[in-house]
């Protein structure tokens, strides 16, 4: 009789027909199978099968883009959960904040996490841009990806800004009023674009609904699209570029 250990259970499971129909390769104990882990996975295949060892060093990227991406994932998860408890209308939006605090299980925790992740994402994206600049990683062939990154920074700021209004408290209302009053000053298009953004001449419940739709649909979709291009281009342009090397050398494209 064979002893039933956790190890053998996992091995039986991994060798079962059902498991192998989902994950076609075996255990990642050979370099061939380690390649297939990346190669045969929709989400991992933005990576090459092998990476340059030095790109794994902390000082190569400080993982800043990764932190911003982690924030985006956390914001999506907490944001979808928050949407279950939120009505984009006046005054229910504000009452929902109170419900989150006093009624919903872990509601305050969800809102806190969403808020701090949003601030961290803006901060990390800015630091990421500084890192890329001082490592001169915007140089050919990465010029276009720098531009995509600038657009992503703007989308991140807009996401944070549209979300800022949603609690519908004094902080939100006047923060957005101050910001949109600045947009009004743009010559020719200022007044019109402000009216378009707010759905009126002042921050009202029309503005709340518009900011909600922008925050939950339009801007996340824009972020997803641009982020896909950004990460895809990182690989197509030869992987992450770290600190400039002393002797410039052309790298082989693999």
């Amino acid at each position, binding site marked *: 009789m064979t002893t039933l250990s956790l190890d053998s259970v996992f091995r039986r499971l991994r060798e079962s027909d059902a498991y192998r129909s989902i994950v076609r390769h075996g255990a990642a104990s050979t370099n061939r199978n380690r390649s297939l882990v990346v190669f045969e996975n929709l989400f991992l295949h933005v*990576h090459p099968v092998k990476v340059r060892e030095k790109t794994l060093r902390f000082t190569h990227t400080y993982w800043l883009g990764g932190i911003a991406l982690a924030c985006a994932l956390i914001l999506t998860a907490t944001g979808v959960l928050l949407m279950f408890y939120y009505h984009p209308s006046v005054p229910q939006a504000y009452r929902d904040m109170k419900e989150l605090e006093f009624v919903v299980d872990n509601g305050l925790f969800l809102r806190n996490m969403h808020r701090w992740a949003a601030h961290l994402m803006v901060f990390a994206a800015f630091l990421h841009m500084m890192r890329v600049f001082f490592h001169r990683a915007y140089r050919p062939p990465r010029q276009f990806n720098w531009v995509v990154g600038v657009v992503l920074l703007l989308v991140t700021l807009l996401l944070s800004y549209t979300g800022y209004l949603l609690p519908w408290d004094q902080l939100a209302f006047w923060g957005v009023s101050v910001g949109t009053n600045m947009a009004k000053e743009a010559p020719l298009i200022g007044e019109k674009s402000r009216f378009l953004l707010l759905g009126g001449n002042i921050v009202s419940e029309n503005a709340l609904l518009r900011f909600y739709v922008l925050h939950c649909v339009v801007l996340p979709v824009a972020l997803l699209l641009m982020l896909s291009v950004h990460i895809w281009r990182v690989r197509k342009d030869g992987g992450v570029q770290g600190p400039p090397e002393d002797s410039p050398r052309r790298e082989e494209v693999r």
Partner: protein
Amino acid sequence: MSSLPPLDLIETADPLATPRRVALVRPDRRPAVRTTDEKYVMTFPNLIVREVILFQLVVIGLALAAILFDAPLEGIANPLETPNPAKAPWYFLGLQELLHYFPPVVAGVLMPLLVVVALVVIPYARINQTAGPLWAGAGPRRALALAGATGAVIALFGAFKCWPIVVPTAAISLAMFAARAGERAGAFRRAIAKVTLPEWIMVWFAVVATILTVIGTFFRGPGWSFVWPWAHPAAF
């Protein structure tokens, strides 16, 4: 190159033609493949495991922050009751601080537009591709030109009494000129002697943006007067 056959001998528009790979080797070149001596590692597990750990660290850090600090929530929005001061989110407070010195169309439209345009064109400006250490092989003309440029920036912002920009601009220009005598000095000055002009400009932008944002966030109270951070705690 004139001895090479024209390309249309090799490429054809016929989709049914058997593709042929033809290597054209010039007599003065050897068909050796360039290789790098870089060490490669398997993406799985080396990179994937690091990514998972990074994600977990971010989740843990944010969860701790969410347990320890509550997101602010003030009274319900009231258009009739303007708080003093009314502040934008922190990342726009640098711009709002500029509003204190410049007309709205300059602080709210022109300057952010200039920043975005400047950021977008960075990889397409030749100087950002070719610039070496600022003072390497530079004569007195470059020093004169840079003194004029920094002086003009200081004079421009000084005319608007915008001290949060004037002071760091002056400090950074001093550092820039201190780097001129770099090779004869200590380790710090040798290090800043390697900085290129685009890097000096970006340092200037980052320092100015940070100072403006910190002042706008922590040091501004009723009527945009100067206050200490503890007198008017910032809300995020």
